[in-house]
């Protein structure tokens, strides 16, 4: 099965937009008309749709990290506590200051 028509190739760039419902009504209608006449593109679009579906179903697979190790937890807690100690406003003032105070 080959896609030789220029029309097939022009529509090719828009197929994800079509699947995601992001095209204008005119563009979507043009694709639907083409699909009704072109078995190659119809099959291609269907296989692209299936690919997206399979990727979406990867979300349902169980993927779990190992337990948070004690050392890693301590590191995170220390980072968070240190950030809490520095007042956010002071951090921002320092970042926005054109020169360090002691340079004036």
């Amino acid at each position, binding site marked *: *099965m*080959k*896609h*030789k028509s220029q029309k*097939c*190739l022009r529509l*090719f*760039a828009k*197929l*994800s*937009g079509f699947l995601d419902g*992001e095209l204008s009504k005119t563009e979507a209608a043009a694709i639907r008309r083409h699909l009704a006449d072109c078995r*190659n593109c119809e*099959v*291609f679009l*269907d*296989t*692209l749709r*299936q*690919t*997206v*579906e*399979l*990727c*979406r*179903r*990867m*979300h*349902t*697979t169980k*993927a*779990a*990290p*190992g337990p*948070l190790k004690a050392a*890693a*937890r301590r*590191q*995170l*807690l220390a*980072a*968070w506590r*240190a*950030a*809490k100690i520095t007042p*956010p406003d002071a*951090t*921002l003032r320092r970042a926005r200051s054109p020169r360090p105070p002691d340079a004036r």
Partner: protein
Amino acid sequence: VSDDLATLAAAVKGGDESAFEAFAQAARRRLYRFGQLMCGQREDAEDVLQDTLLTAFRSLHRLKSPDAVQAWLFRVARNACLMKRRRSKFAPQRELSLEELMPEAGDGAQPRVEEWKALPEKSALNQELRDRLSAAILTLPPLYRMTLILRDVEGLSPEEAAQALGVNQKALKMRLHRARLAVRKQLAAYLEKR
């Protein structure tokens, strides 16, 4: 999950130490699959996870809206992945051209309809198919890989994904389309050989 994350993020941002553990665990669960699909190795995914959480806890107080915590965390994870890539064996960055993904380009192999019809429509993915899909995703250039993972695997909205990746909608859509085409092409090659 994102609602829980947002609630927990608000508590942690407010200094609630009792929410620290729950937020860390929820964020780890939410980010783990992204790290694994990005890195391909469990060890690397754990490293990315820890680097991401370290950065997140250091700068959570600067997060303006806890409701946006999911996109923000993925953005931090994206940076952690790119940093790791610089230090290790990630595939070099390259662009996917539409031409190389066109149906009549490349190996010219078109999927046979019956083979695609035999794929499970609704049931859970079997291990072999999941491995093939993961391998196909892993061969994508990193920025394309991130786009596909965030949009199609993790289900982020176009706005959230664009925010996480720091790109505009046009670039996001272009990358997503090419990433899907590249994965479809690899899946077609696998199905034909089966």
